[in-house]
């Protein structure tokens, strides 16, 4: 069963606290992504990971970092969370490099509220 799993699904943090969002996939996909979704702004790419320890910034990487130590697992870290990082975060994976023709499979999302 092809699945992308995100944990936690819901999280409330105080400003300045660290946040760890985790994502796993069972499809042996090479490429994984972190997006954030805000009302009216669509999906904005934070980071792409092409494989273990091979990560690249997306369009809005500031304030975030990622870690990929195993192919099936990709983490998003917020060091000292800010209120403007309140959002829904989606992890996705695709089969291999090169997006053309590759379907992105999304996780169910992690809703983060920073107060």
């Amino acid at each position, binding site marked *: 069963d092809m699945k992308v799993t995100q944990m936690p699904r819901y999280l409330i943090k105080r400003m300045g606290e660290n946040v760890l969002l985790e994502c796993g996939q069972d499809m042996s996909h090479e*490429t994984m*992504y972190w*997006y954030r979704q805000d009302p*009216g*702004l*669509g*999906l*904005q*790419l934070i980071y*792409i990971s*092409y494989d273990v320890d091979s990560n*690249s910034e*997306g*369009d809005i990487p500031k304030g975030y970092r990622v870690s990929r130590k195993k192919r099936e697992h990709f983490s998003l870290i917020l060091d000292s969370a800010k209120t403007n990082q309140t959002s829904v975060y*989606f992890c996705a994976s695709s089969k291999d*490099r*090169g*997006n*053309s*023709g590759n*379907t*992105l499979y*999304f*996780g*169910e*999302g992690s809703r983060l509220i920073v107060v």
Partner: protein
Amino acid sequence: QQQVRQSPQSLTVWEGETTILNCSYEDSTFDYFPWYRQFPGKSPALLIAISLVSNKKEDGRFTIFFNKREKKLSLHITDSQPGDSATYFCAASDSGYNKLTFGKGTVLLVSP
């Protein structure tokens, strides 16, 4: 700079009507254009996609029309159903690059 633009932002149609969602892009290197659909409270999922080699792609009630010269696409949904109510995202990518760029989406409501 917004590379993929969608219009309208939101749209309400009656059941049975044809829905037309519009998308345009700027980057001439884009060659793959998927549409993703997101139901409320759910994650996006691929609906239909077209590449630069085609002018039209059909899948059941969903059809993409592609005007390469004008860099415009449209998604047509015939016989729209209340179950089609969702947010539709147009996206674009370059085969030599991994990044899929999404538009801001169109929120569709189909009234019975």
